[in-house]
């Protein structure tokens, strides 16, 4: 009974009259009634709620512009929500700089366009994951503690990129670049991974390989992951639960097996599959 919104396939959630009682429940992440309106008046989120248990992999699907990316960025405070609450490990997220910095150590993010620094080596890019822990006096010198280096090297090894460590990030293929992105996220030693369209800029085959690799490691390390996915098949294949978002609201929650064509029409519109 964590997600009160578990409905049968094909039935869309009605707009909640009162927010579902999810705060204070044992879980890793709870998002309640999150809204965000951009300065230009665009309403990106209008009351999204979700929960995540430790070790759970949840996918968010929906049209481009449905608010998936904004929701992810509200969770680690890259975007400040207009209203609503985010709770991580039972603690309400505070919006001051130092609290956010501590929060972001535990929540890593993977991006659609990898967001690597092309001029720097693969290892340096992975070391960026340690910036949240870096000692003050080392900040200006591009130096990291030996412990940080060991963690970064281990993360590279997990993603099978050890031999590439000295290459410049921009010299790698798309699939390799995203694996560097994952290694950087793992180097943070996070509890939760947010993945914003992690494989959308890769070809279908590479996308499946990279996401499969990612999910395998998330499972092995017992981490939780919340991923925005474009490809419905990948969401079905790799997640424990799926959330459908439409026009800034959660409209469906269910298991991968329950994701039928009629459900997808409810999420993506009547044109889906037509």
């Amino acid at each position, binding site marked *: 009974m964590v997600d009160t919104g578990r409905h049968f396939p094909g039935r869309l959630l009605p707009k909640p009259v009162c927010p579902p009682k999810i705060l204070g429940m044992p879980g890793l992440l709870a998002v309640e009634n999150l809204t965000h309106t951009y300065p230009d008046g665009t309403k990106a989120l209008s009351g999204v709620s979700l929960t995540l248990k430790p070790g759970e992999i949840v996918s968010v699907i929906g049209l481009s512009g449905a608010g998936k990316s904004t929701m992810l960025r509200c969770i680690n405070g890259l975007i400040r929500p207009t209203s609503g609450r985010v709770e991580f490990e039972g603690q309400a997220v505070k919006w001051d700089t130092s609290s956010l910095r501590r929060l972001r150590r535990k929540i890593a993010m993977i991006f659609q366009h990898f967001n690597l620094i092309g001029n720097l080596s693969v290892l340096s890019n992975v070391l960026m994951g340690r910036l949240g822990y*870096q000692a003050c006096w080392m900040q200006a010198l591009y130096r990291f503690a030996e412990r940080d280096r060991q963690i970064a090297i281990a993360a590279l090894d997990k993603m099978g990129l050890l031999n590439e460590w000295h290459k410049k990030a921009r010299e790698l293929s798309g699939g390799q670049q995203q694996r560097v992105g994952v290694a950087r996220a793992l180097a943070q030693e996070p509890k939760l991974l947010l993945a914003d369209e992690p494989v959308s800029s890769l070809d279908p085959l590479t996308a499946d390989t990279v996401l499969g690799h990612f999910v395998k490691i998330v499972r092995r390390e017992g981490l939780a992951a919340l991923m925005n996915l474009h490809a419905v098949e990948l969401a079905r294949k790799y997640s424990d639960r799926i959330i459908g978002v439409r026009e800034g609201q959660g409209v469906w929650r269910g298991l991968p097996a329950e994701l039928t064509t009629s459900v997808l029409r409810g999420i993506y519109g009547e044109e889906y599959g037509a």
Partner: protein
Amino acid sequence: MVLREKTAMTALPQADRPYGRVAVFVRWLIGLALVTYAALAVIHTEFNPLKLLAGAASAREILGQIVHPDWSILPQLLRLMNETVEMALIGTLLAILISFPLSFLAAKNLMLGTLAGRAVYAVVRLVFNVLRAFEPMLLALLFVLMVGIGPFPGVLALGLHSVGMLGKLFSESIEAIDPGPVEAIQACGGNRFQVIWYGVLPQVAPAFLAFSIYRWDINIRMSIILGIVGAGGIGYYLLQYLNLVQYRKVSTAFILILVVVTALDYASAWLRTRLGQA
């Protein structure tokens, strides 16, 4: 005959011309005004190719001396040329030192977030614009009056003008960065300093280096001219030789300047290509 067949032609739809006739008339008027102004300018500038022919006679004597450069002064000129290059180097380094930190304060994408940031941005931008507006020649005249004749006023003039130029170029390359890595550093828990040092700096470093080399290159050429107002280097002596009608020495100086400037120009272009910032 077939080509003229009327049925094959498609008529263009009538385009909207709200100010049709008036616009055409105004355009003609502007064209006419420009031609008239150019004609007046020819008269005012006493543009007269015949004068050039008349001057050819006196040029023959000068040319006669110029083709026989006086190589005995070469060691002295080399020392002066070196002084010119050093002036440009120190001027450029001074400018880099000042404009590097300031350029971050003049980048829209870093500063426009807060009200205080906007104010700092506006002030630093204004400083850059003002410094650029002062030609190094004017600045050198001013500094020669302040600190006396020699290479030091030249260094100050080049440095100050270059702060404006480099500051503008640096801050514009900061504005052109990919915001993705910045977001990534923030998401990793990086603080403000780390975001700039690790997210912005690696992206702009090659451009900064290329702009700095290019600036040194320009400053070498400029510092030759600065010598003419007494701000050190080879330019000062070039003016002396011209005043004393010693065309054989002028010739040596010209050749040396040509060789050094060309060589450094190629070196700077090669370096910048290596940095991927041609």
